[in-house]
């Protein structure tokens, strides 16, 4: 547990490995998303030129997508326990309206991740699996019959739309709504006040596990 200059505690929220993996996912996803959008709709084709031209992005999109998936798999293993939906999440869902309007106190009693974060994580993971399965049919069209390829396009597009929609919410929450979250994912630590305000149960559990965390 790190110490702040004013003597108060900093709590490690994301160790180095989580941060490296998270930013690998973020970078590869953004690349794959932007190159996918270039092919998705003609008004976005200029993105192809930004990334080196049509043939270049056609070659790299699926390869970088595999890096994205591999990194996501690591996070899946590392966070599986904390992302499990449990009985306390039911209460969070009941207070969804308060969460949206900013009266977070009623739902602050969350574990390491609240239900919103868990839902986002599982939606992203599920769409990644669908993107992989459908993406392979677009990658090697001659290996699949036409019906599968057509289904592939529909599934690839729908899951990309869901994943991008979820990403908009994710970035907005992290960067704009909860100051301190970006620092958690860049420097790895949060303040005790931050933890109490957003993830009180997590803080409590940390403290009972490591008595020296008390101050």
């Amino acid at each position, binding site marked *: 547990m790190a110490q702040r200059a004013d003597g108060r505690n900093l709590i490690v929220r994301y160790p180095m490995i989580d941060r490296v993996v998270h930013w690998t996912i973020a970078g590869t996803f953004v690349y794959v998303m932007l190159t996918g959008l270039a092919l998705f709709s*003609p008004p976005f*084709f200029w993105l192809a030129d930004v990334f080196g031209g*049509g043939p270049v992005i*056609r070659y790299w999109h699926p390869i970088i997508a595999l890096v994205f998936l591999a990194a996501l798999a690591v996070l899946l293993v590392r966070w599986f326990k904390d992302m499990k939906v449990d009985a306390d999440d039911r209460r969070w869902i009941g207070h969804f309206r308060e969460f949206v309007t900013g009266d977070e106190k009623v739902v602050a009693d969350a574990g390491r991740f609240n239900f919103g974060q868990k839902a986002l994580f599982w939606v992203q993971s599920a769409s990644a699996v669908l993107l992989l399965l459908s993406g392979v049919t677009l990658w090697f*069209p001659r290996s699949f019959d036409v019906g599968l390829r057509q289904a592939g396009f*529909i599934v690839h597009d729908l899951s990309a739309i869901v994943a991008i929609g979820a990403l*908009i919410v994710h970035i*907005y929450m992290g960067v704009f709504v909860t100051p301190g979250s970006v620092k958690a994912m860049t420097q790895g630590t949060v303040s005790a006040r931050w933890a*109490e305000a*957003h993830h009180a149960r997590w803080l409590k559990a940390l403290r009972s596990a490591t008595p020296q965390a008390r101050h």
Partner: protein
Amino acid sequence: MSPVTSASALQVKAVSASPHTATGIKDVPELTKMIDVSVCIGCKACEVACQEWNDLKVDEIRESPPQTYQTLPDLEYNFWQLIKFNETERDGRLLWTLTKYQCMHCEDPGCLKACPAPGAIVQYSNGIVDFVQENCIGCQFCVTGCPFDVPRISPTTGKVYKCTLCSDRVSAGLEPACVKSCPTNAISFGTREKMLAQAQGRVAQLTADGLDHAAVYNPSGVGGTHVIYVLPHGDETSLYGLPTNPKVTFVNLWKGPLKWLGNLVFAGGIVGVVLHYLRYGPREVDESRHDDVKH
């Protein structure tokens, strides 16, 4: 044969991934190639003419399907038209339905609609659908968009190729190479009205000869094609390896409602979070209060 058209035949009508293409205003006649299956003798002169005019060389003659005279099992990136030696048993006898297979130059081309690369596929006012390899990115979306399974990618160039209906010859007023080579006149080329009328005339003759189901193949699901067939057994298109009712329904769904759903989610998502921020703002944590952190 007199020139069927003038150089202005190559006026652009539609361009892939370019919804607002300016189309020309010249009154260019639509052209059509008519293939009379009942007259084809399977001599393959058209295959040779196609390879020769387009300077194409197949790298290896792969094994044909067993016991047929077909040159190759299927079209290749450097083999744009193929006489299919379809064999069926009919009343205890062999029925040989030789079918010249190549791009159909659809009026509503699934390949062009599917293509995400601006300018990689063009359709000319005369009906020819042409691939422009400089703009092709090799994604093969056209392979899935084409209801006739025509486009083929080259493993060396990474670009897609197919029959051009000899757009180079046609723009110079010449007929396509296959048409010129056919010794039985099974292939004709000319204005669309003339070819449709000629095809109907042949169907009437075949019907009079007792082929009750003779028909013109000009499928309406793709808006008609600029390559049409006279089929002696027009009610059984599968005998000729031709789809009964080719459609571009999937491409329209993929490139229409699905794109709009995407645009709606992307734009709606961004507008939504901006409005949320303006209404509710960030959730600051008061860092000065450190006395009340419960243990």
